[in-house]
């Protein structure tokens, strides 16, 4: 699916907010957006990441598995939205799937961590 349409109801303003945050981030060298909400991020001196941006009221395992199935190869699921939350057990889910699930504010901090998704 090309940019411009996604099945997760992520609106243009949310995508713009996220891309602006990546553009301004000191750990991000460059990134590319595909499938409207998938971001391949190259970090300075750190590993690259394949990230999907979602916006779920409450992001549980069912939605996380849906994202993994729809976007193969993703390493991180980022949940945007100030009133939204991640409710799955992140550690358990990471052990099962090798995929990190984070709220947006935590993800922006994690980008600085060289051990994040290393």
């Amino acid at each position, binding site marked *: 699916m090309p940019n411009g349409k996604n099945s997760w109801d992520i609106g243009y303003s949310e995508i713009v907010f996220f891309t602006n945050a990546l553009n301004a981030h000191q750990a991000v060298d460059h990134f590319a957006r595909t499938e409207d909400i998938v971001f391949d991020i190259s970090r300075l001196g750190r590993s690259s990441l394949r990230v999907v941006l979602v916006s779920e*009221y*409450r992001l*549980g*395992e*069912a*939605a996380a598995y849906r994202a993994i*199935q729809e976007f193969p190869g993703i390493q991180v699921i980022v949940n945007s939205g100030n009133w939204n939350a991640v*409710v*799955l057990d992140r550690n358990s889910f990471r052990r099962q799937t090798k995929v990190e699930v984070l709220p947006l504010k935590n993800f922006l901090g994690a980008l600085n961590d060289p051990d994040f998704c290393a």
Partner: protein
Amino acid sequence: MPNFSALAGIVRGIILALPDELFVGDVYLFGSILNSSSPNDIDVLLVINEDIVPPAEAYKLSMPLSKAIEVQVNLKLDLTILTRTELEKSKFVALVNALLIRTQSSRSPPSCQMR
């Protein structure tokens, strides 16, 4: 018992009339459908028993129910799926004052007062 909009009552009736086999979990309504006569969409919470319905299969299994509701109500459906563990941990039903429409195992929902 809180009051809910007449539209919520109509949607409740539509959902209750759907075939039993579509229900893979407990179904709640929340959001603007409960309070507004002209919502933009329907927020539905589906709570699955993760011992019976694998979370990795939940969205696929819920598609027939989602499609049936959308067709009958003619509004876009925004579906949130949580396991029972996630629901208990998040207290989401209480947080958003969600309305239980039916449980997976029963066609008799709790009574609720409509405006």
